[in-house]
């Protein structure tokens, strides 16, 4: 297996990075390009950008952010929010993103997963799942569905998704630890990698998630103290998790 990944997630609205608790109470935490560079310099293995305000007139703002990010970092990054067609995905990938993340659009039109994978490869398609108690939510966690989390993850994988980004809505921004039970249930049901998301508060939480799955998403814990990412990596590594060797700038 490749090395465990720690992935800072930047929620973007109107060209700024924001962060909320359980998907509400958003506050501004910075400029996406500056933060991307900062986290890349701090040893992030990968980045995820989710445009949580995505509306049709936001699309150009997002493409411009993606281009500027691609020009300042040389680690992989995934972009989600408002991608509803193969053309939308193409614009984001041509702007410099490695992968697109689909959420509500994949639930509404599951064939979109297959169509994007056919053009750009499975590795370019992440399906993001916002999980409630047992069912999936859409529209930034506001709208409940009657679709159960584990079967939906299995369907997404079967349709060509290359990775599942699994967020526990209840844990999002709470810093009380990841939902390991949920993560394990999804990971055991599929054979594509799974990123655990929601709940990172300490290095021990991140290490616990990385014992259960391939990658861990972090947000509040790093946005609060962007200079703390190298320290977080050291602590996680000290807990026995194999991360990529990373030379900190003196």
């Amino acid at each position, binding site marked *: 297996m*490749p090395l465990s990944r720690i992935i800072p997630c930047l929620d973007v609205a109107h060209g700024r990075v924001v962060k909320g608790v359980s998907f509400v109470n958003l506050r501004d935490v910075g400029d996406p390009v500056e933060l991307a560079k900062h986290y890349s310099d701090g040893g992030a293995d990968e980045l995820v950008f989710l445009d949580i305000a995505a509306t049709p007139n936001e699309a150009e703002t997002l493409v411009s952010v993606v281009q500027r990010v691609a020009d300042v970092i*040389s680690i992989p990054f995934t972009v989600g929010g408002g991608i509803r067609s193969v053309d939308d995905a193409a614009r984001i990938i041509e702007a410099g993103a490695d992968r697109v993340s689909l959420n509500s659009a994949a639930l509404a039109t599951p064939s979109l997963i297959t169509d994007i994978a056919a053009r750009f490869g499975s590795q370019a398609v992440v399906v993001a799942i916002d999980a409630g108690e047992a069912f999936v939510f859409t529209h930034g966690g506001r709208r409940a569905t009657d679709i159960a989390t584990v079967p939906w993850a299995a369907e997404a994988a079967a349709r060509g998704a290359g990775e599942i980004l699994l967020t526990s809505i209840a844990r999002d921004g709470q810093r009380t630890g990841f939902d390991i039970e949920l993560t394990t249930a999804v990971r055991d049901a599929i054979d594509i990698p799974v990123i655990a998301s929601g709940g990172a508060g300490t290095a021990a939480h991140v290490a616990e998630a990385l014992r259960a799955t391939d990658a861990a998403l972090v947000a509040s814990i790093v946005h609060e103290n962007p200079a703390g990412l190298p320290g977080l990596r050291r602590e996680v590594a000290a807990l026995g998790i194999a991360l990529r060797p990373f030379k900190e700038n003196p």
Partner: protein
Amino acid sequence: MSDVVVIDYGAGNTRSVRSSLTTLGFSSVVSADPDTIRGARNVILPGVGSARSAMTHLEATGAAEALVDRFTNGDDIVGICLGLQLALEASQEDGGVKGLGLVEGLVVRLETPRIPRLGWAIVDPWDEAFYFAHSYVAESPHMVATSEGLCVAVRKESFFGVQFHPEKSDAAGLKFLEQCLSRA
């Protein structure tokens, strides 16, 4: 004339490759024009998308023939990810696709526990971590590096191909690209 031609086959993230080249001080241009490819100091065949659509595009534009000519003339070609796979004789992807045939070898489906194989992994004997994102892998007698037992770099005469993404592999990737493009 630009230092490096990044070959366009219609599905790629060429921007990241070019950003890395700019960082390293190499000028670059994206093109599928056969004469531009033949005359370039160096070319990079980057890697995203499916083998079949990439080969179809390379053949339709004449880029495939230009790459074969370069190789025959001993001019450098760097393949990244799918760009490595396309240089071999054939791939199992998409029900079977004939490659450029520059280097002996085949491309087979990965048998790792999780596919795609995503993330950073150590490459031996170079002892550096690079970023991978692939579902298929090369098998070639011209293998020069491995990662977790898989063939991840192939070198024959003027062709040098790697399975990982140097343009996404941070400082290690930049160092690799610089060495690779400076060897001529």
